């Protein structure tokens, strides 16, 4: 990591012989390399996806409780569930993009969590459609 940082700073140091245009090109290359490096770290990526799933789960729980307690309208709860469902499915899609990622045990477990969350959201959404707060309450952990 430290070696990479040193290499990057050497690459970005601008000697007087290097023109501004070349220097700007170096910055663009360095930023692309940093981006590629960050995107390529599977553990960091998995951590971000885990946080996204946790955020969706907690959002779903709070919205459902608030709807049951008449703190938010059915219209808002519906919209919030639809958005949470989208985010959960988007995360699941990212997790299952390649067969190699699914072979990883942690990724497979998170994918399953995503599926369960999507199913929970769909059932909560259905209980709002029929106006049944008790059903929603039973579904909540």
């Amino acid at each position, binding site marked *: 990591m430290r070696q990479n940082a040193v290499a990057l700073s050497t690459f970005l140091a601008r000697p007087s012989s290097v023109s501004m245009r070349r220097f700007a090109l170096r910055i663009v290359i360095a930023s692309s390399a940093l981006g590629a490096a960050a*995107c390529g770290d599977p553990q960091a990526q998995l951590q971000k996806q885990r946080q996204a799933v946790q955020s969706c789960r907690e959002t779903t729980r709070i919205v459902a409780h608030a709807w049951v307690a008449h703190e938010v309208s059915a219209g*808002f709860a519906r919209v919030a569930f639809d958005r949470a469902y989208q985010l959960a499915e988007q995360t699941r899609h990212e997790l299952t993009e390649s067969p190699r990622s699914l072979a990883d045990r942690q990724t497979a477990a998170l994918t399953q969590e995503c599926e369960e969350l999507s199913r929970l959201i769909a059932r909560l959404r259905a209980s709002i459609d029929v106006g049944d707060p008790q059903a929603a309450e039973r579904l909540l952990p």
Partner: protein
Amino acid sequence: MKKIAHLVLGVITSIGGFVEVGSISTASQAGAEFGFRLLWTIPAAAFVLAMLVEMSGRLSALSGRPYAAAVRDRFGAHYHLTLMAAELVLDFLLLAAELGGAAVAMQLVTGIDARWWLVPVGAIAWTILWLGSFSFIEDGLGLLGLVTLVFVVAAWRLHPTPSALANGLIPSLHGGDLARYTFLTVSIVGATVSPYLLNFYGSGAVEEKWTEEDLWSNRITAFVGMGFGAVVSMGTLVVAAMTLAPRQIQSDSYEQAALMFLPAFGRYAVPLFAAALGVGCLGAAVEISLDAGYVMAQGLGWPWGANKPRLETARFSGAFTLMLGASLLFAITGVDPLRLTLIAVGLTVMLMPIAVLPMLVLMNDERFVKGHRSGPVGNAILAAVTILGALLALIVVPLEILGG
């Protein structure tokens, strides 16, 4: 007495006009992901904005020319075209995000899909632009924007500890995702220091015929108004830090952001959040559209002015109408307003040197500002912040946009 009343109104409307889609999105994301740790960025960015806005007002009051016209006169048509293109691209993206934000606010209240609200929101914005004078637009929307004080009220009701607030005002890189931390820092700067505000404010000074005598009220309006405006934005971050962060809820959508008001306001949470978001976005949408008209008209030498009959300034009116229509069409394609906001504010910081560095030159040219030149310390701070911000943005923004 009249001048004092005008000054107070200017300060109040600055507060009301401070919060819009960019500040709500970035402050709520920062609070939800990093707690109080990014609080310092808001007053720092607001200070930079206040310096720039004060300069813009001073330039207009002393030279009788708004920023865009002064750049054309000082740097020539070629540079002006570069600045104009950059500003119009940013205006276009930000305007689409503001329209989207106002439509989402309606969706939060009614449950009806935001896309159905885009055209009515655009129509309201255009009607205000077509019928309103400059003071109606600035003061009316600014006063209406005081509803955004609800963020401060929510923060006050949640009782944040003074030590947590004080710690948030000290920059800290401890723990967490450094790239994300830097990206949100850059985004908060971009959301606060919007280039459209510079030209809009300066154009307003010309519309209201400011002179050298108005320099003191310009300074007070810029620093006090933006200072209190920053408090509203800090309120957003504090509320998100106290309600979303402990539950690990990220502010990836406005529906999630709206939940931050639940502990403070209960059943009024969503309507209050929607009102603040909707009014803030509508006000900003009107101002950005008007700014696009100003930039084009001033740069190309067309007659302009929100106080003149619209048919007398047909090309100016056509320019803001065109910008509003184009952004509306873009928003209708279904682009996510939150994501668009983050792209727009990131681009703002990247392009900031193009917009800000000419200001520093103008503020040291006696042909424009007579004896009221800027001091070397202020110039150095602005130049350093602008260049550093742009370099950081160049590195972290592509990284985040590509979803790294």
